């Protein structure tokens, strides 16, 4: 958050949070929402559009299938030994290797993409985080300059925030 202050609102109800987020978006302020659970309504409001994770997954899967078949083919050619009159490069037998490597690399790349886009590991959790946000409360953290603090805080209270706290933004 680039501003000097962060106003943290703690909400018990999702609809209160959503109206506070809408007001924040309308005022074009920088914000972050914390939620104990994934919620599609909130997601559509705060992060419209699809996650780019899928492109990384696709890259991993393509690399996996290419790598799997290449491994089997190149290893067989490196020590060419005909077994039971089968071709040295016998593609049907290598399908399992290609298939498993597709899944393996696709999954590993998805994990790396998850870490990258979620900014994990995140040793210093972001300003405004409250342990209750993993329990039953929702949080809205809005960045603003010192003169705007009171306005943001009263907007949150008006929307139904249970607690409003002002912290120094990182």
């Amino acid at each position, binding site marked *: 958050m680039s501003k000097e202050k962060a106003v943290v609102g703690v909400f018990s*109800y*999702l*609809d209160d949070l959503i109206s506070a987020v809408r007001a924040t978006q309308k005022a074009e302020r920088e914000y*972050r*929402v*914390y*939620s*104990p*659970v*994934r*919620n599609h*309504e909130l*997601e*559509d409001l*705060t*992060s419209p559009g*699809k*996650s780019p*994770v*899928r492109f990384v*997954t696709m890259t991993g899967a393509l690399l996996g299938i290419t790598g*799997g078949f290449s*491994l089997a083919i190149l*290893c067989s050619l*490196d*020590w060419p030994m005909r077994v039971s009159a*089968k071709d040295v490069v*016998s593609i049907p*037998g*290598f399908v*399992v*290797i290609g*298939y*498993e*490597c597709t*899944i*393996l690399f*696709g*999954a*590993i790349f*998805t*994990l790396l*993409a*998850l870490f990258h*886009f*979620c*900014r*994990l*590991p*995140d*040793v210093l*959790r*972001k300003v405004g*985080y409250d*342990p209750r*946000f*993993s*329990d*039953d409360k929702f949080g809205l953290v809005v960045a603003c300059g010192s003169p705007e603090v009171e306005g943001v805080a009263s907007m949150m209270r008006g929307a*139904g925030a249970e607690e409003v706290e002002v912290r120094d933004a990182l």
Partner: protein
Amino acid sequence: MSHAASESTAEPVTYKTVNDAVLRMLEPPKFGWYLMLATCLLCVAIGAVCWTRQILLGIGLAGKNNPFGWAVYITNFVFWVGIAHSGTLISAVLYLFRANFRQPIYRLAEAMTVFAVLTAGLFPIIHLGRPWFFYFLMPYPNQRALWPNFRSPLLWDVFAVSTYLTVSAVFFFVGLIPDIAAARDRAKTWFRKLLYSMASLGWSGNHSQWKHYGAAYLLFAAFATPLVVSVHSVVSWDFAVSIVPGWHSTIFPPYFVAGAIFSGVAMVITLIIPLRAAFKLHPLITPVHFDAMSKLILVTSGVVTYAYVTEFYIAWFSNNPFERYQFWFRPFGEMKVAFWVMFTCNCIFPLTLWIKKLRTNIVWLFILSIIINIGMWFERFNIIVQSLGRDYLPSAWANYSITMHELGITLGAFGWFGMWMTLFIKFFPAVAIAEIKEVIPPPTRHHHSGH
């Protein structure tokens, strides 16, 4: 969680009650937990002693000898890979189909998958005469410029099982991240705070994280789903690609996959019933969940029974004397007890689940789940040992006797699996907090219209 919420009479299920109920399981253990852990460790110790003796004195202690190149250890390998299966089915396949009954049980099923594959992975190594050379299976550059045979089903197995272990462990860990964060935020001791802070990777549940998390989780489920079909299919090809009577059959892949789901769901029930009683998870795990799992058992039992009957039909229809003899030998030969135990446990007892009262009778389900797993162990024993015992050459025929070392190592495997499960339920949330919350109506001040 609509089922749980509607059936709980005490209080409605809310975000807070879910956290309370699940995180209560992580409180300091009581005597029963220590007793369980000590029992598991004792079994592991017995298994370790037997394996050590086998390494020092030779593989002959296992009773494997011609014609039984594969015996109890490979039976155990197939059994444990099968157990692993339903974890992925419940976590990934049912996630893609949006089956809400999976939420309270899938974490335990996933843990079961990871620990069962860890157990299964030991057996091909224990089975080796010189286990310290197990890495010969891996394609690695070596000074002899040798590579493994990529056309061999045994190498397919290495790739299939190691991919399965990796992907299921990743899927399991990713699912745990938000729940470990919830545990972190309530941890009281410095050790637990440190453990959960590290394991949760600093997860905060902000809107950007949830968005990418949801996308990644769906992709993991999509990747894990084909593994449900592929892993046990590949394991079945270890047999089906050979020419041994009783093994060389095209029905093996679906037959193995159905059997794996059958035994895996039974194992989930075996584990979840004591856990539910010990941690009072009745509001979260309700008769609706047991009813759904019982129906899954009933269906897969039907498929397995159909496969057994088909095997006999194929043997008769093939007019192949070796195949015909093999399928006469199984129910009427010297090792017939193993066949009839399998048939009774897997085909007859599960029929009781046609009765609705028994599908939700916890005591009966617990007993039945154990019966099924005994039956499924014998199924693998029949396939492997009976087939090898009656090969093409009558001069090579033999009957198998299990040795004490094999029994000890088999017991050790159950202890090893139990040890990981026991440790897991005390250190990590064994019920998925975030996913249960997803199916509870979110708290709203005004009427929530849904989305």
